């Protein structure tokens, strides 16, 4: 059983800054993402739901980031940089041990 940790856009900002990352997609469930976006749209606010998802598992924190990259870059290089940036951030912020950092390249080009 895992719990979604309180949302923070800190990791979103970090991932977007990684060279080669073109787009950051919501890593959470489609239903939750669309629901949040719809509520925010009705309220005439910009969507606030973070796209990088962080979960607390029994063995530590699991972070998932789903990205789109430009065709000029290498998927392996970009995803490694995203992983390393998240890992460094988690170490710096004193989060619990990392169980897994998942980076999904969902679109190229």
């Amino acid at each position, binding site marked *: 059983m895992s719990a979604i940790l309180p949302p923070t856009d800190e990791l979103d900002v970090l991932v977007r800054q990684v060279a080669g990352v073109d787009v950051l997609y*919501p890593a959470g469930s*489609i239903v939750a993402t*669309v629901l949040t976006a719809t509520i925010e749209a009705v309220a005439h606010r910009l969507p606030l739901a973070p796209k990088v998802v962080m979960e607390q598992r029994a063995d530590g924190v699991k972070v998932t980031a789903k990205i789109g990259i430009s065709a000029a870059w290498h998927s*392996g290089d970009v*995803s490694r940089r995203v992983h390393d940036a998240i890992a460094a951030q988690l170490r710096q912020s004193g989060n619990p041990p*990392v169980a*897994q*950092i998942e980076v999904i*390249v*969902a679109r190229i080009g």
Partner: protein
Amino acid sequence: MTELTPADRRFVEFDVDDTDREQAGLNGHTIEQLSDYLDRGRVPADPSIDDSPDCEIALRGLERLRRVQLSLLDRDLKRESLRDDNWVASILDNITLEAHAGRDIPLIHPSPTARLVVTEGAVRGILRETGDKLQNVLVGRCALFGDVGVPGVPITISVDVTVFPEENIPLVADRLRQAMYAVVAQHTNLVVTAIDITVTDLSIAPQASAQGQEHT
């Protein structure tokens, strides 16, 4: 060393009957809805489309198909392209199916806590784009065969293409194959043993086509 597909071998069909997966793949949207969204210039913005990589892959495929259709019009080949209404419909179907995220293809990282993957849909998308970018070529279908989820396991790629006039087909196939090998190497750690290219459609200039008919 590459292998060529025997002329009588067709692609294994996608699971087109799996409508749940199809709808989930395009975030609950149909290709027609995405086409309308393009027509509207993506306004008003729809987060359920914009936040979906599968929709984005399908939208890009649609855009390239439209450019080819416009190009055909410019070259007065509309009549030729319309000789078979199924041609565009078939490509649209394949764009829809191939945009699905599909299987996860692992990317190598030394950390035990790292799980890095590129989706099969992203790879099919960039392969399709690579083919469509070549002069006088349009990719009809693109599929990865083999266990892409296990690093080092040999896989093959099969591609159906339409080739437009004034092209030497063996040269086009060779250019396409080399370009696709390069893209796969750039974006995955897959071991590709063959890229089978089948030219399923030849578009012939109307004048030549008409002359051909006169002689039959």
